[in-house]
C-alpha cells in the first residue's frame, strides 16, 4: 500500500498488540512461572522447583486422565472423520432440498452443550431412557451408558454424544474440500468405468486427504483438552472418568492449587505437541498433495 501511510498499519493493529501482550504472552509466561511454585492466589508464590511436576506425574488421576482422554479422542475422531466423509459425499449431490439436510446435520453443532447434555443424559438413562428401548428392537443392550461403573462404557458414551454434536462441523469442512476437487477427475474416472465405491476410495479420499489431515490435527488438539462434555455428562458411578481438563479445573478452582494445575497443563501441552509432531511425521505416508 501507499508508502506515506505505512505507519497507519500500527494504528490499526494496536488493539491486537495490546491483546497479545496482556491476554496471551503474559499469561503463558506467568503460567510457566507458577508451575514451579506453590500458589493458592492469596499468599505470594513460593518457589518449589520441579515439585509440582513430580507430584503430577505420580498422581494416579493424571494417568487415568490420559487413558480416558486417549480413548475419547480415538473413538471421537474415528466416528467424526469416517461419518463426516460419508455425509460430505452424500451432501455434495445436486438434489432439491439438500440445504435443508445441511441445516439438520449442522443443528447439533449450534446448540449449547449444557442443554444437549440434559437430553442425552435422559436418553442414556438405563431405567427409562429411550436408547435402550430402541436398541432392544435391533437386539442390542441393555447398556448403562454414562451411568455405568465401567470407565470404557462411560467414555465411549460421552464420545458418541460429542461425535453427534460435532460431525456437522467436520462435514462442512469436508464438503468445502470436495467442492474444490475438479470435475475433470471425476469425469475421467467415470469414462474409465470406475464405480461409485471405487471412485470414493481411489479418487475422492486421496484428494480429500489434506483436509482430513487438517481436521484430524485440529480435532486431536481440541479433544485432548475436553472439559465441558465430561463435566456435564459425568454421573457419580464410581468409575474413574477423569480427563485432563477436569483434573486441571478441580486442582485450580476447587482446591486452589494453581501451581499444580499449571504443571498439569504444561505436561498435557507437551503430550499434545508430541502427538501433533507424530501426526506431522506420518503425514507424507497417507496425505496426497496434488
Amino acid at each position, binding site marked *: *500500500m*501507499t508508502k506515506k*501511510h*505505512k*505507519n*497507519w*498499519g*500500527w494504528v*490499526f*493493529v494496536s*488493539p*491486537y498488540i495490546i*491483546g497479545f501482550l496482556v*491476554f*496471551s504472552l503474559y*499469561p*503463558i509466561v*506467568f*503460567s510457566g512461572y*507458577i508451575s514451579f511454585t506453590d500458589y493458592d*492466589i492469596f499468599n505470594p508464590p513460593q518457589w518449589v522447583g520441579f515439585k509440582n511436576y513430580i507430584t503430577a506425574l505420580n498422581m494416579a488421576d493424571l494417568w487415568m486422565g490420559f487413558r480416558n482422554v486417549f480413548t475419547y479422542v480415538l473413538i471421537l475422531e474415528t466416528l467424526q472423520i469416517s461419518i463426516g466423509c460419508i*455425509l460430505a459425499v*452424500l*451432501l455434495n449431490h445436486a*438434489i432439491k432440498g439438500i*440445504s435443508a*439436510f445441511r*441445516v*439438520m*446435520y*449442522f*443443528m447439533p453443532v*449450534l*446448540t*449449547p*452443550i*449444557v*442443554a*444437549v447434555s*440434559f*437430553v*442425552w443424559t*435422559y*436418553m442414556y438413562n438405563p431405567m*427409562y431412557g*429411550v436408547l435402550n428401548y430402541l436398541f432392544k428392537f435391533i437386539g442390542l443392550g441393555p447398556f448403562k451408558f454414562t451411568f455405568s461403573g465401567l470407565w470404557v462404557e462411560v467414555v465411549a458414551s460421552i464420545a458418541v454424544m460429542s461425535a453427534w454434536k460435532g460431525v456437522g462441523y467436520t462435514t462442512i469442512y469436508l464438503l*468445502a*474440500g470436495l467442492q474444490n476437487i475438479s470435475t475433470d477427475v471425476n469425469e475421467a474416472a467415470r469414462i474409465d468405468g470406475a464405480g461409485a465405491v471405487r471412485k470414493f476410495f481411489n479418487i475422492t479420499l486421496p484428494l480429500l486427504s489434506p483436509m482430513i489431515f*487438517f481436521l484430524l490435527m485440529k480435532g486431536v*488438539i481440541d479433544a*485432548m483438552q475436553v472439559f*465441558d462434555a465430561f463435566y*456435564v455428562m459425568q454421573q457419580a458411578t464410581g468409575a474413574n472418568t477423569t480427563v485432563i*481438563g477436569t483434573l*486441571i479445573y478441580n486442582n*485450580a*478452582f476447587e482446591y486452589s492449587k494453581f501451581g499444580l494445575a*499449571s504443571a498439569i*497443563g*504444561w505436561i498435557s501441552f507437551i503430550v499434545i505437541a508430541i502427538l501433533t509432531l507424530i501426526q506431522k511425521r506420518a503425514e507424507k505416508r497417507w496425505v496426497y498433495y496434488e
Partner: protein
Amino acid sequence: MNKRIESKRTGKIFVVILLSLGAIIMMLPFLWAISVSLQGPGLAYVTPPQFFKPPYHFDNYIKVFKEGNFLRYAANSVFVSVVCIVGQLFSNSLIGFGFAKYNFKGSQLLFFTALCTMMIPHNIMSVPQYIMWHNVGALDTYLPMTVKMFFGTAFNVFLMRQCFMGMPNAFYEAALLDGANPIKIFFRIYLPMAKPMLATMATTTFMGSWNNVFEPLIYLTSESKYTLSLGLLYIKGNYEHNIELLMAAAIIAMIPVVVIYFFAQKYFVEGLSSSAVKG
C-alpha cells in the same frame, strides 16, 4: 444414454434415502426432547416411552420461565453475547485491515504470532487469566468474558485479513486523492464491503458466547449474574422429578442459536468454507 440417466436417478433416490435416515438419527434427540417437554408430569418415566402423545402441555414452557431466575439468566446471556459481538466486530475488522493493507515493518512477524496463539491450549491459559482477573478485583463480573473480545482473537483476525486482502487497493488510492484519511477510508469504503464476513463473525461469536460454560463457571459466583448455560446447570437439581420441565428449559436455551443461524446461514457456510480451504 437412457440407461445412464436412469442409473443416475436411482443413485439420487438412494442418496436421499441415506440422507433421510441420517437426518432422523441426528434429529432424534431434539424430537425426543420436544416430545417429552410437552408431556404431563410423571409420563417421562413410563415404559414404553411415549412419543408425541396428546394431550400436549404447552404450559410446561411457561412454568420454566416463571421458575426462579430463568428469565434473568437468559437476559444475562443476551447482554454478554451482544457485548462480545460488538467487541469482536470492532477489533477484528480494524486489526485485519491493518494486516491486509499496510506492509509496515514487522507486520509479517506480528501476524505469525497471531497464528501461534491459535495453537496454545486453553487449558494452560485459563489459570493465569483467572489469577489476573482476581488480582484486578474483577471476579464475579462479566469483564473476564468480554474485555478480551475488544482486542481481537487470532482466528477472526485471520478471517478478516483474508477478506480485506481480496478487495482491490485501487479504492484506497482513489479515496486518498479525494483527500480522505485512513480512518475514513476504512469505515466508509472497505468496512461496508465486508458485511458478509462480519455477519459470519457475529454468528460464530454469538454461538461461542451463548454456549460458553467454562468461563461463567469459573468467573461468576453470584447466582443473579449467571448466564443461561450456567443457570441451567444450577436449576438442574430442582427438576430431578420433572424431566419434562428440564427438557422444556433445554429447548428454550437452544432456540436463539438455531434461529440466528437460520437467518445468517447463507453467509455462515460461505465464510466457514472459504476460510477452511485457504487455512
